[in-house]
């Protein structure tokens, strides 16, 4: 067990624990802030795996923008923020459905873990990853991104535009047609 292993395990425990709190927390703002912790520790996991640029983009876009949008959604829908108000709208389902959801979630975890760990022993994989820092550096990623992946990269800008126009059309659709 190397130092990288220990670092990854610490980050993974943090990510799994804060993810659990994000989906079980009774208060919406706490859940959103636990999501921030999960996404931040995942950025740390990417760093350990040698994907520097991905880690920085994760921090910039996910923690910076997406969580802000989630908090905006909470604010604009007047979600129950305090402890006492709007108890007639709990943010989770009742106990039977939560148990069912937990069973399905555990099943998916078990299934995925079994399949992925089995794939490790298959051909083309080794049980250890030799992390190469220079693969995830900005020079290498930029070179590949703007040489080989440039067409899908540009298509993404069209997708973002379409999503923005779609969001505008959806949110204004009710008033003025």
């Amino acid at each position: 067990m190397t130092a990288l292993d220990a670092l990854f395990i610490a980050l993974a425990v943090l990510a799994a624990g804060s993810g659990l709190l994000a989906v079980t927390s009774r208060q919406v703002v706490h859940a959103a802030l636990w999501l921030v912790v999960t996404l931040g520790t995942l950025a740390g996991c990417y760093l350990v795996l040698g994907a520097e640029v991905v880690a920085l983009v994760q921090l910039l876009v996910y923690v910076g923008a997406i969580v802000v949008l989630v908090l905006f959604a909470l604010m604009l829908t007047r979600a129950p923020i305090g402890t006492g108000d709007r108890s007639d709208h709990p943010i989770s389902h009742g106990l039977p459905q939560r148990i069912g959801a937990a069973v399905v979630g555990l099943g998916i975890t078990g299934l995925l873990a079994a399949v992925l760990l089995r794939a490790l022993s298959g051909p083309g994989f080794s049980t250890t990853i030799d992390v190469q820092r220079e693969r995830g550096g900005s020079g290498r990623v930029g070179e590949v991104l703007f040489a080989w992946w440039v067409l899908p990269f540009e298509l993404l800008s069209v997708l973002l535009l379409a999503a923005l126009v779609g969001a505008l059309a959806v949110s204004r659709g009710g008033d003025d047609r």
Partner: protein
Amino acid sequence: MIHAAGPLLLVAILAGLGTYGVLARRNVVMVLVGAELLINSVALLLVTVDAATRDPLLSGQVLTLFLITVAAAEVGLALAVVLLLFRHSGSSDLDDATSLGETSNLGETSRPADADADTDTRTGR
């Protein structure tokens, strides 16, 4: 050197947590939080496999960058849908959203016939 089982186990755990969040939450924004966890488990799997297989085109890392962008677009659109849902049913509770179309009294104001169908497909995503 890092053992590959750790990242893969974290992928499985995050996917299970995300599924639990999507299924167990009533508040639609909290369902979105579960979906974000699911997306991030996929991203971690892409980065892990990229580091393990050492693809010369860095496809895992580049696809993760694309995935993060798509997630940003998805959340923007989801915010609009959540706001529309809130405006129509008065709460962000999924149990209150029992009808797909716009069933409010706006119906008589010369609304095009396909508008309801459009909303159905959008909110159904």
